[in-house]
Each structure stands twice: as structure tokens, then as C-alpha cells.
């Protein structure tokens, strides 16, 4: 299988921007834990960047409430193409245990398009690494078609 320079560079350099959209912190601390020595997603070339304009992947956690919904849209619009979105956790995937509360959206995909869903309440760091690997495969597949 021939791998183009484009997809090789893209899949090996996933810069993450993390948005906590009204989450309970559970997913966020597990996401941060996946950067720390035991899990260390920098092995895959992923690193946390401070500005959405530098990022390739938007990692969204939480139950996107109306205040954060507008912010989330603006952040997504600020990211340069190609951009990918990971919905981290049950709340971001479809509302989770908060389903039916008056101030939550049922999932990130109601607001912005999502590429990878990582379920769990909260997902373990291993699951986050698995999700990143799925995203790498997806990038490769899209580019080779």
C-alpha cells in the first residue's frame, strides 16, 4: 500500500485542542491523564496546543449547554482545514446520564460534525488512545481513496 506524504504527515502529527463544553471534569482529567507518563499519547505525535488555529483535532467533552454551544461553533469555525472532531465520553456522544436535563444538548453532533466517538463515563485513557488510532486509520483511508 502506497502511503502519500500528505496522509503520512497528517496522521503522525495530530495536534489536539481540548474544549470542555459543560462537562463534569471526569472525561477531562482522563484526557489529561492520557498525556501523562503512563499513557503518553505524544508517542503518536499528538500534542496539546493552546490555540484552535494551531489545531487539527477538536476534542469535545461534556453536555454542550446553550452557552457553550455558541462558543463551540466559533471555535470550530476558527480551526483550519482539514479538521477532525472527537466526541469524548457518553455526554458528548449522546447526552449520557444527563439526558432530559433542561440545559443540555443531546450530543456534540447536534452542533458540529463529529468524526470519532469515544464512549465511556469517562472513557479510560486506553480507550482514548484507541480512538486516536481509529482517527489515524480514518485519515489514511480518506487520503488513499
Amino acid at each position, binding site marked *: 500500500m502506497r502511503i502519500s506524504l500528505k496522509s503520512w504527515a497528517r496522521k503522525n502529527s495530530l495536534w489536539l485542542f*481540548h*474544549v*470542555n*463544553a*459543560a*462537562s*463534569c*471534569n*471526569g*472525561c*477531562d*482529567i*482522563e484526557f*489529561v*491523564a492520557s498525556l*501523562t*507518563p*503512563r499513557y503518553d499519547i505524544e508517542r503518536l505525535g499528538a500534542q*496539546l496546543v*493552546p490555540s484552535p488555529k494551531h489545531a487539527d483535532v477538536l476534542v469535545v467533552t*461534556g*453536555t454542550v*449547554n*446553550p*452557552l*457553550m*454551544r*455558541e*462558543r463551540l*461553533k*466559533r*471555535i470550530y469555525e476558527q480551526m483550519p482545514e482539514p479538521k477532525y472532531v472527537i466526541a469524548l465520553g457518553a455526554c458528548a456522544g449522546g447526552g*449520557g*446520564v*444527563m439526558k*432530559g*436535563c*433542561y*440545559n*443540555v444538548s443531546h450530543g456534540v453532533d447536534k452542533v458540529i460534525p463529529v468524526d470519532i466517538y469515544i464512549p465511556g*463515563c*469517562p472513557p*479510560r485513557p486506553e480507550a482514548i488512545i484507541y480512538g486516536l488510532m481509529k482517527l489515524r486509520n480514518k485519515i489514511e483511508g480518506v487520503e488513499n481513496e
Partner: protein
Amino acid sequence: MSSDESIEKTVKETTAGLIQYSPEGLVPFGPVHPALKEPEYFKIILEGEKIVQIIPRIGYAHRGIERATQDRTWVQAIYLVERICGICSFAHSLGFVQTVESLTEYEVPRRARYIRLLIAEMERIHSHLLWLGLVGYWTGFDTLFMWIWRDRERVLDLIEMITGNRVHKSYATITGVRRDLPENIERHVQSAMKYLSERVVFYKEIVNTEATILTRTKGVGWISPDVAIRLCPVGPLLRCMGFKRDVRVDDPYAAYDEIVPEVKTSTDSDILSLLNLRLEEIEDSIRMILDAITAIPPGPVKTTVPRTIPKGDAMGHVEAPRGELFYFVRSDGGNKPTRVKIRTPTLANILTATEMLKGHTLADVPVVLTGMDPCFGCMDRLTVIDLDEGKEWQINGEQLRRYGIEWYKNNKRE
């Protein structure tokens, strides 16, 4: 008398300043900001690099959980309130469960009370270590951050062995805990605690000797205790001002009447003393865990209770890692709560933190603001406050977005 008046004046200014500001020198801090792992918005008004006023705009993590508890049964509500916050999740479920227990006549088995203490203290260690690592991150000391988070994994391993989960434990239940301790857990607990106590000594040395950390934290965020006590702070923030107040001692729950915690205080009321205070609390928690694991009595871990809870009002509080966590529960005798009121430590502390920041520079914002160990997920479970001009917003989301773009355009080159 004059000192009383000056205190009164400072307190007045703090609360009045929440709504008065001028747009010059305004710097937004958040809601999505690298220093905050959670969304929260602070308007910072600057003169050069000096902070004149800081206005919190809380509500970005509001979900409406208090309303949602009214639509769930008592047992479902435990798992819902647990998900208010991922860091102090056991404290939330414990606070709720104990408040509900005080409405019933069932006794919690002694073994379950010990296990509750064990998990609560492990959670305190995990939360304090997490905060300490993030202090390293905020001051730009990534190495410290990585080391501390590596050591934190040891506590999470123990929590996972006992409860089955790393973050949301789903462990406390009405009159007890859901499952018994696994076999041979003493060995694991003892080895992990031995390792951690060595590391805590090492971190204490780093914090008190590393010059760059000292310059960033010593004397930063000082606040007069007389002013602070009027603003009703809780937890380590209150203890670092010299007030000896801890719910575990003042109103013992779980097994805290048998294994008594030592309340640490400090009188410096700055960020460095907060760092030392939390490290000392970790040491004390390690001692309590080691005491509890040897003294743990045999017996059942829960009793069976009916699905309905007798009519009445009850209030209870626990000492979460961040301070006093308050629960009020009203039952009408049915299988669902009529009203659950939660007051989290961060909401109590935020007023004090804004007062602590005045007169400091922009570089101190992440250290001080997060020095109180905020947990906005907790705070916003109900509260949404827009302090912006106090004017009525009657526009929909899309208009708001356009308004934001326009605002950015007009205020761009100030």
C-alpha cells in the same frame, strides 16, 4: 472600630465591584483557555499588567442537575449527583447518601463506614495531587506536572481495585457501599502509600526550595483573614488563613469519629501556604488510610432498604477535597426526591479568589484563580450569572454569535 469599618468597606467594594467596570483594558480569560481545564469566563480589567477588577461570568458548565434529580428515583439520583464533578465524585455521592440516610432509621454498618473513609481519603489524595500537578502546569513547570500525575496513577489503581472505576466510582449506596473490599487489598494499599509518602516528602522539598516556584507563589494572593471570613470561604482556602475548620472534625461522619483527622492550618494565607497545606493534608490522609486498613472491622457492608424514603427535611455536609460540600434533601415520602439542593465548595470560594487577585499582575491570574482549586463543573450545576451590564438579552444564539463578531471588530485595535 476603625479596622472594622475598613473591613466593611473592602467587603462592600468586593461585592459592588462585581457589576461596575469600564471596557478599557478588558482582557477575556476563558471560557476556553489553556489554563482552565473547564469552561469559565473571567473578565479581567487591567491597567498595564496590573489587575484592577476581575469579574466572573459563571454558567458555562450549567446542566440543570438539581431539577433533574426530581425526575429520578432515589437510587438513580445517587449516580446523577455523582456526575456533578469527576474529581470529587465520591464526596458528592457520599454527601447525598448520608443526607438521605439521616431521614431513614437504618444504621450504616461499621465496616461500610470504614470503607467510606478509605475511599474518601484516597479521593482527597488524588484530588490534591491533581491540583498540585496543575500548579506545575500553570507556572510552566511541565516536569513537575508529569511526575505528579505519574504518581497519581498509583492512587487511581487502588481506587480501581476497590470500586471498579477510576473516576466515577458509583460505590456509595444508601446504608453502605455497594461491594466489599477485594482480598489482599492491604498489601497493595500499604505499598502504594509507602511509595506516595516518600514522593510527598520529595515534592515538599521541591516546592519549598525551587526558586522559580517560590517567586511565583510566595506572598501571592494574600488576603486579610478578617475580610475573607465575611466572604464565607471553605476548605483549604479557609484553613490557610488560620481558621481551624474541617467538617470531618466539627461534624464527624463515616468513621471520622474513630480515626480522627488532624486539622492542618497555616497563617500565611498565600499560594505557597496553600501548596504546603495540601501536601500536609496528603500526608495526614496517608496516615488515616494506613490506620483504617488495619483497624477495619469485619461485617456486612450494606443493609437492604425500601425504595421509599420517609417524609421530612434533612441537611448534611461532607468535607470534599475542596472544602465543605452541602446537601439539602426534602422528601415527601415517595420514591423520588422533592428537592435536592447542593452547595459546592467552589461557589463559596469564588468571591474570595477574585478578592485575592486584586492588585496582582496578569501572570498571577492562573496561579491564584486556580489556587483555590476550582471545580466549575461543580459550581455551575445550577448557577448561571451574567454580570454583563445587567441588561436584558433577548436575542437568539445566531444573533449572539454575530454580536460577538461585531464586538470583536469594534474593539479590535484598542
